[in-house]
């Protein structure tokens, strides 16, 4: 949801902007690294 909102506002956010937005989303299973890879790909492939 956070990601969707951020990408609505800014199609090519910087690493810092991504980190700031996503650091409010907590994950207890430690899959942050995979989420990051997915986010990076999404931003890279962005329309």
């Amino acid at each position, binding site marked *: 949801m956070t990601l969707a909102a951020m990408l609505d506002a800014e199609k090519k956010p910087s690493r810092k902007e991504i980190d700031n937005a*996503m*650091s409010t989303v*907590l994950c*207890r*299973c*430690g*899959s942050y*690294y995979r*989420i990051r890879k997915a986010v990076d790909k999404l931003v890279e492939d962005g329309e």
Partner: protein
Amino acid sequence: MKKGAKQTRREFIKIVSISGSGLILASYIPFNEVFAKIGDDTKIFSPSVYLKIDSKNVVTVIFHRSEMGQGVKTSLPMLIAEELEVDWEKIVIEQADADKKYGNQSTGGSWSIRSTWEPFRIAGATARVMLISAAATKWNVLPENCYAESGYVINKLNNEKFSYGELVEDASKLPVPENVKLKDLQDFKLIGKRIHRVDTPDKIYGKAKFGIDIVIPGMYYAALSRCPAFGGSVKSFDASKAKSLSGVSDIVQISNGVAVIADSTYSAFKGRDALVVDWDMGPNGKTNSEDIRNGMLMHIKSEGAEFENRGDINSVQAEEKQLEAVYELPFLAHAPMEPMNCVAKFENGKAELWAPTQDAQNAKSEVAKILGLNEDDVTVHITLMGGAFGRRLVSDFAVEAAEISKASGKPIKLIWTRSEDMKGGYYRPPSMHSLKGSVTKEGNPFKFSHHVIAPSITQMRFNKNLTAEKSEIKGGTVNLEYQIPNLRITGTLIPTHVPISWLRAVYNTQNPFAVESFIDEMAYTAGRDPYEFRKDMLPADSRLTNVLNVAAEKSGWGKKLPKGKAMGIAISAGYGSFCAQVAEVTVSGNKLKIDRYTAVIDCGIVVNPDSVEAQLEGAIGFALSAALKGAITIQNGGTKESNFDDYSILTYDEMPLVDAHYIVNDYKVGGVGEAGIAACAPALCNAIFAATGKRNRRLPIDLS
């Protein structure tokens, strides 16, 4: 060729279900489940409790453990599917309820694949052999002239084939063979492949039902008020204000506190908060963390009970350099994202539960006990769960829900708030570690002693007479592969009123932290590289040495790093697996950035490589949360922390890159869920020391 031992025969139950005519059993175990659908012509072949094939050619694997996000709902069925020779995409996976016929359903100890590796493969292979046998008979050929593939048995001689569905009736009539031949490792088509988890799509689309999502007809919502101090009890309570709130229907007292039942979670929480309860805080109402700490501190100078002894810990070598250190770790909460919850319906002398539980049979027996029922009158459905990390092995939430349902006469859903969950106890116990060692002037290890002081979960929860040397607090302290000539490992148990239980990796969350940090301290005292120092102490042909070497190589250990950047290394063994991790950090002032972890695991045969990597990454995320932030503080007999603001966990931006590797070999399958935990924190602290010269002996880390 595997021997089909007696225990596999126990697992084989053949059922032939003929439409309408009930059940014909040819079995070794009494079995009272009816597979046949009334009025349906479907016949079923079920040579094992874990597998059903029906005459419509549907293959169903029964998943008897708990899926908490670790992926076993995928990897366990893979074992059966591999040997059965059936298309993975076509398999139906059914979650089992709690039932002794499935054997052990407790999910923990990184044990699921290890415990099912052989029995599940035998189950799949046996079914395959029986289907081939049935087909061979139909064709009047020898079984050797047939083979199984993708859900068909094919006749080599004329390429005719039967689907498994067509063979179900005949196969059911066959005796169950023993000593079926399992596939050779190189013939695996499924095991060893990166298979997507079967629960992922529903979880992405929001269709997956976790315990907290369950809704049943006529269900109410319950919230429980518990004593703020562990070990306390209700003296009296005033429900008048609570009762007056809209939506609230009942107030009931149960063993653990006072429950409010309402028509929504909001009303239940509001009602619970409006209760005025006079608590008897119990014998530990004034106990604080400081008291518990002092309780451990007073044993720091004592010997402790002996776990392991080698050589002479009191011998001294000329010009040896001695060192000693005390390590300390706090209580930890599991804090899974989905808090404790359970749906319970007590009706007509029977109880039915929908529980996110890691130990469904325990939930069943505990509920039967508290309600005074026969276990046969209790049904426990296992739901998905949003993380567990060992917390859901305790059945307290199921017992509470069952009691509330019985006392109120209503089906209820009990949900704990985040605060209740954080304060709910059953924590990873705290510990203190006194380490002493020495290195020779040549830089070799000479002495090593470790005295661990901690409460024992087994003693506190199950066996008050347990002594230290028989207790599980020794896990991660003994049988180190390091060939140190003089070694003594001891331990002291301390009691605690705070409920404690198993948290992912249990004592491997703390003992290896002390050990691997102190080994590092010894290396520096000896003026030696921490990787080389470890390598020289390990047997050259050890699997542990191998992962150590691979981690050093893959991380680029030894390369010159810019100021403020450094690496730290640590190793661990457990769960039948071996792990080495290198942490790479950047420290500037008191700002720490964890750049990368190189994590290497040798877990023998790998079933699902994606799962292995995910478990390593996840373990690092989990262990870093504990190393950097996690601490439960006890005040006035209860817990101070209440949410993720005061019990913080790692955030997205803090998570390092993880370079995960697994060793390819065909050693016995090893456990993975917990194997990545132990080496994480010591690798980090060793890296911080390398970068700053500051040694962290207390977790969570203090960077100031």
